[in-house]
């Protein structure tokens, strides 16, 4: 077994070796290096062919028409294009947007920008399990509402929103529905002919593809129109200009082709590893699973180890690559806004670790991690004055803390 162990698959994934091979073939003189927009020679035609094949693979994974897929630089750009593009195009219809407090920053910051431009935005609170209820979406709508933007799988806790039910509500109201699906490709089946989703964001590097490439789905029937955010040569039907990066796109196409092929098998294995992991630590005292236990994507485990600060735990787990909702890992000194929106007390948010299991995680790695986590938490609790107080039966909510 090789150390350190990578358990941060929700942050990014390594490219699958099959993806790397495909990409390498699109770079050098003897490969497929042409500009897909070159109409005058075979180099361009061949590159365009590869682009369209990749577009079909992406469309196949989410069951849509390949003409509904637009290449972008990643899910962040897709979120920006979908939200700002739709809001600005349809601003004469209304100025109200609905999203949630636990969206990715790409969505939240796009909404903040629109607020500065005069739009009004409702930030929904999720339930305590992290799920945004369809009722709360319905209740937040008014005659000015033009857009709802919600994520499919939350990137910190892995819980899954009911986009099927929410789509029914938005479609009935004639409101555009954007879904950030950066975390869900290859983890959950997505059928866009069935779902009433109008815009969807995808990322390659969360699904064993390369970084720097993503895609956006824009429905054709009923047709959703957007104001372009990047202007130039009119690529991607004017929605996103810029020379297409053949190697990146081919990599994403291959990654999504493999995702469709291997999704069931992958997820079964990953879920077993996740269950093994959780069963290996859940009997410890004061350990909490964050987010709904059942409506969640296979690889995610966001756990709070009470009375242990998350960053110190990460330091103790130096052979394991994970991330934390602790303030100390961010520049802001604020604990995770996602966990706080779930109603978690600050100290539990500070004590949280996200373990994300993926395609290349082994059983041996999980066993090793279980032992290391148990040992490290115990050691850090020996060091923790809060653990002493808990053991002494002190009610910490009644203490007046001298804040440093």
């Amino acid at each position: 077994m090789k150390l350190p162990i990578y358990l941060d698959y929700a942050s990014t994934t390594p490219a699958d070796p099959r993806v790397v091979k495909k990409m390498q073939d699109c770079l050098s003189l003897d490969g497929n290096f042409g500009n897909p927009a070159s109409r005058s020679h075979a180099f361009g035609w061949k590159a365009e062919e590869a682009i369209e094949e990749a577009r079909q693979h992406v469309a196949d994974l989410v069951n849509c028409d390949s003409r509904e897929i637009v290449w972008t630089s990643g899910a962040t750009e897709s979120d920006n294009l979908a939200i700002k593009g739709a809001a600005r195009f349809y601003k004469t219809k209304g100025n109200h947007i609905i999203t949630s407090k636990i969206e990715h920053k790409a969505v939240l910051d796009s909404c903040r920008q629109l607020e500065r431009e005069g739009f009004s935005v409702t930030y929904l609170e999720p339930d305590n399990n992290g799920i945004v209820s369809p009722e709360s979406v319905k209740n937040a709508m008014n005659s000015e509402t033009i857009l709802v933007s919600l994520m499919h799988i939350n990137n910190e806790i892995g819980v899954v929103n009911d986009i099927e039910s929410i789509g029914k509500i938005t479609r009935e109201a004639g409101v555009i529905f954007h879904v950030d699906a950066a975390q869900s490709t290859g983890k959950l089946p997505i059928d866009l002919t069935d779902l009433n989703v109008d815009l969807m964001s995808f990322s390659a590097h969360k699904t064993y593809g390369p970084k720097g490439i993503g895609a956006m789905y824009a429905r054709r029937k009923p047709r959703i129109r957007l104001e372009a955010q990047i202007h130039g040569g009119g690529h991607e039907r004017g929605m996103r200009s810029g020379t297409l990066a053949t190697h990146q796109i081919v990599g994403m196409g291959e990654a999504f082709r493999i995702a469709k092929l291997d999704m069931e098998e992958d997820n079964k294995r990953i879920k077993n590893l996740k269950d093994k992991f959780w069963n290996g630590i859940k009997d410890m005292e004061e350990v909490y699973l964050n987010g709904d236990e059942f409506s969640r994507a296979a690889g995610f485990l966001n756990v709070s180890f009470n009375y242990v600060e998350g960053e110190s735990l990460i330091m103790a787990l130096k052979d394991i690559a994970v991330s934390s909702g602790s303030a100390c890992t961010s520049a802001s000194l604020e604990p995770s806004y996602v966990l706080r929106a779930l109603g978690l007390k600050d100290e539990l948010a500070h004590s949280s670790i996200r373990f994300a299991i993926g395609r290349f995680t082994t059983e041996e790695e999980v066993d090793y991690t279980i032992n290391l986590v148990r040992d490290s938490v115990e050691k850090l609790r020996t060091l923790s004055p809060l653990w002493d107080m808990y053991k002494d039966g002190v009610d910490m909510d009644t203490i007046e803390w001298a804040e440093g």
Partner: protein
Amino acid sequence: MAYSKKVVEKFENTLNEPEKNSVGRWNPSDSDIGTGMVGAPACGDVMRLQIKCQPKNNSHVISDVKFKTYGCGSAIASSSELVDMLIGKTLEEAREIKNKDIANALDLPPIKIHCSVLAEDSILKAIEDYESKI
């Protein structure tokens, strides 16, 4: 963010050999013990520093120290570093220890300076508590 070598070393030593590194507690009501607790769970760090003191000449000397810290690696390393600085000092000398001394000893990056500030506060509180008993 990468940690300085000194923080990592201090943190790991403290974690793996807590007793040797003065992790522990005394009864705070003992007359020769001064206790200072600073920080808050909601802020992500709490330090509890205890000094054991003896009268000597016209002053009082810190003969031993115990601590426990809930916080990030730098907070734990800062408390542990502070302990090394305190033993054998008079209360007057201990008061002179500034957060900068701790930050410099550990090469703390600017974003972790608050950990050393907290450590400085904990000495002052512990001394205050001890002095209230004499």
